[in-house]
């Protein structure tokens, strides 16, 4: 026997843990630790052998109020959701610690649901689905058990009945699915976290930025968050450059986008043939306002972003929500361009580092090709890739080239671009991402912040050519991650994330409107064209298949409910009916076989009847072997 209250406690704890899981990573670790501590104490009290008394209710009430004070104090316009979630998490832990009555169980479930819902205000991670299903299932089970508990707090039932009562929760959830699907399809919804703009992320991390600042930080942290997923065919690794922003203005320490450059400085394109990608761009907290596409993009089209058909690779769009767009790219490294003001791309700050200018002059020599010479210098001059020990000074490029000789892609690209400009070759920096991890299960590239990259474009012979001076190094986070054992696991889990975003999160108001229009047009203009037999055939086949499935299930379950001997007998009589003999009501089996005229059939039927009776009338159990043997006798009839 098991007490209903024990089952109720188990279900309630699962709810609380699901609520906790939903805000994992969204609230301060101190609050997470506080909850874990309270939960362990409560668990020991409720399930363990530790018999310490329940704290008095007044004490816990005061503790709840005190727990809320820091959260209330921290709430402000820019930080609204997180403190509330933290306060709720502590309240949940305190609630678990109470000597739980009806209302306490109810409150635990409600707070857990609030935590889950609150988490969606700042994150749309696919783990939500997991916690959602756990929470919905177990809070339903809790409510059912609570109904039993309220009727009789000491009620105990057998384990089997306890399981059956709990299974009703699952049944109710399944019954709720059709309604939920309808609500999902028609209910207005946002496909981005509503309060995400309040939770900006700061700090120096390796990620995309719309400017390159040299000499500010000596060490970069890796960031593994997803930037975008690009659904497309797999292409050679060397072409995986995801273009974001062009940086053409250099002030000696940093690269920025040229002031006054029009975002709509579009150039006509001759062809839109190329590699087609569907990009699912994640909202990320870098304040970025750029769309990414495989270098070089020739057109971009999407619900939110409109249609862009350009060549210069600048797609200004604020990205603070998840968006989806299609891009067409020409992955060749050379992009022809005309009417470019080349003077802008050779500008250097006045009096800029005479040492570098001197170095460039020496490197190129008299008859050398500046691009190849400088690229060769950076590749063979003892430079190495590093994210740590970066130069921090007012002349970071000098320090990089002449002293440190180690740096990340920003230093390599800046050095190349500056040296090219010093040599009179128009050059600019391109910010974006390099590489990505192809997920064959989903057919897309996963691109992380750690893939952030900066490279150079130099203007040669009527067009821009891509130059990447950064050595491919194991030190590079993106390259290192490729060799990581975790990558395959992450890609596997990310497949779910991808489809979750594609089918659930991306199902937005515009798609709802589109669906509504489809339904309306179908109602207004129903399919009356009987010549479209293919459609009709499909519809009929689906309906017939559904009906057959229902019949099969009902018949199958009905058969399974019969005993083994009853099933055998029913099979035998069915066979006999097929041969033209129907057993009368109350007619004995031997009497029945006795009136058969076909001697062969009669002998076979008698064999079955004899074997059947030997087992049945001697009160023996029909074993699997008996059933198999008798079935073979029936088959021979």
């Amino acid at each position: 026997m098991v007490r209903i209250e024990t089952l109720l406690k188990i279900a309630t704890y699962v709810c609380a843990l699901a609520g906790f899981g939903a805000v994992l990573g969204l609230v301060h670790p101190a609050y997470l630790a506080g909850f874990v501590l309270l939960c362990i104490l409560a668990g020991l009290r409720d399930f363990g052998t530790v018999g310490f008394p329940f704290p008095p209710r007044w004490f816990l009430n005061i503790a709840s109020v005190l727990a809320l004070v820091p959260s209330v104090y921290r709430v402000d316009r820019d930080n609204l959701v997180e403190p509330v979630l933290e306060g709720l998490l502590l309240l949940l832990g305190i609630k678990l610690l109470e000597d739980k009555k009806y209302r306490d169980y109810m409150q635990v479930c409600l707070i857990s649901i609030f935590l889950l819902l609150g988490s969606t205000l700042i994150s749309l991670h696919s783990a939500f689905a997991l916690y959602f299903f756990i929470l919905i299932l177990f809070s339903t089970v809790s409510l059912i058990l609570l109904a039993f508990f309220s009727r009789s707090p000491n009620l105990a039932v057998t384990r089997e009945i306890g399981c059956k009562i709990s299974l009703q929760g699952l049944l109710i959830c399944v019954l709720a699915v059709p309604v939920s699907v309808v609500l999902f399809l028609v209910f207005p919804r946002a496909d981005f976290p509503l309060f995400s703009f309040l939770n900006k992320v700061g700090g120096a991390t390796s990620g995309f930025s719309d400017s390159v600042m040299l000499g500010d930080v000596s060490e970069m942290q890796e960031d593994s968050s997803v930037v975008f997923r690009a659904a497309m065919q797999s292409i050679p690794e060397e072409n995986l450059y995801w273009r974001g922003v062009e940086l053409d203005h250099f002030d000696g320490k940093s690269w920025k986008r040229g002031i006054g450059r029009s975002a709509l400085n579009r150039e006509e394109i001759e062809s839109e043939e190329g590699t087609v990608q569907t990009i699912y761009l994640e909202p990320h907290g870098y304040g970025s306002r750029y769309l990414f596409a495989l270098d070089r993009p020739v057109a971009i089209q999407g619900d939110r972003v409109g249609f862009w058909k350009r060549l210069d690779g600048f797609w200004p769009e604020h990205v603070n929500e998840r968006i989806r767009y299609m891009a067409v790219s020409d992955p060749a490294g050379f992009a022809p361009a005309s009417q470019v003001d080349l003077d802008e791309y050779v500008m250097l700050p006045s009096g800029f580092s005479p040492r570098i200018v001197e170095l460039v002059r020496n490197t190129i020599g008299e008859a050398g090709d500046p691009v190849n010479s400088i690229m060769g210098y950076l590749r063979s001059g003892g430079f190495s890739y590093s994210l740590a020990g970066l130069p921090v000074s007012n002349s970071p490029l000098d320090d990089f080239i002449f002293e440190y000789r180690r740096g990340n892609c920003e230093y390599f690209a800046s050095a190349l671009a500056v040296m090219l400009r010093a040599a009179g070759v128009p050059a600019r920096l391109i910010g974006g991402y390099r590489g990505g991890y192809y997920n064959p299960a989903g057919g897309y590239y996963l691109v992380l912040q750690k893939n952030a990259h900066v490279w150079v474009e130099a203007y040669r012979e009527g067009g821009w050519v891509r130059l990447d001076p950064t050595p491919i190094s194991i030190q590079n986070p993106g390259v290192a991650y490729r060799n990581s054992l975790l990558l395959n696991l992450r890609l596997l889990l990310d497949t779910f994330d991808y489809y979750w975003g594609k089918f659930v999160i991306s199902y937005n108001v515009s798609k709802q409107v589109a669906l509504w229009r489809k339904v309306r047009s179908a109602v207004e203009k129903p399919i009356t064209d009987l010549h479209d037999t293919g459609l009709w055939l499909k519809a009929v086949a689906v309906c017939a298949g559904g009906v057959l499935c229902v019949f099969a299930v009902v018949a199958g379950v009905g058969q399974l409910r019969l005993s083994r001997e009853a099933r055998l007998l029913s099979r035998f009589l069915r066979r006999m009916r097929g041969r033209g003999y129907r057993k009368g009501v109350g007619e004995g089996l031997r009497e029945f076989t006795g009136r058969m005229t076909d001697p062969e059939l009669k002998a076979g039927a008698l064999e079955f009847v004899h074997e059947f009776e030997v087992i049945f009338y001697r009160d023996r159990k029909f074993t699997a072997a008996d059933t198999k043997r008798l079935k073979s006798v029936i088959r021979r009839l």
Partner: protein
Amino acid sequence: MGTRNLLTLDVRICFPEDVFAGTEVPAEVKVSNRGKWMPAFLITVNVRGRECLFPYIAPKSSVSGTIMVSFEKRGRARVLGALISSGFPFDFFKRFRRVRKEQDLIVYPKPLRCEQRLFNDGMTGSRGEKELNKPGYESGILSIRDYVPGDPLKYINWKSTAKTGRLKTKELSGAERRQVIIDLDTIERNDLERTLSCVTHAALNLMRSGIPVGLRVEGKALKPGLSAAHRRSILTRLALYGQN
């Protein structure tokens, strides 16, 4: 789901043979689930204001429980049926269904020990000896009847009890017996109900002691006897006295 939970239920209420007014008696409540597939959950059966909870009733099966019920007045009583209810699944709403199964039963007067002298030995029948030194439990079995609280345990017939599932008591005949006839018409009746209660107690007591008891009511007489049927006849007459 909550409505379906109640739809396939049947309720049967079995009262014990002897129901005395003002005394709680155990009524057996049997709830059957006719449904083929779905069990019934959290069913409360209410009979005359008393409730019995059935947490789970499997499909195509029955469960039994006991409700202590009492009837205030003697005479005919009509039980209209039972009210079944369930808050399943969430107890947010409670659904009710009345199972109408009218059932008539006779409620006997409440037995009451009285000092009042109800009968004269001189009025008793002449058969047998007056002086009865031995109680009438030694000889053959007269009948087997339902157990009545107060019967000596050693006279419980275990074989019949095992067969029927109910406690049964052997009724033995005494070797020597005297008879008592209670003449209700001649008994002083300032308080009729109290008198009937006293008579009931006396009759039960005498019969339990093996003394055949007869009854004369409104000129009609019941011959002295000891059988269970006779006992029921006497109690029924007392229960319905003045109500026809």
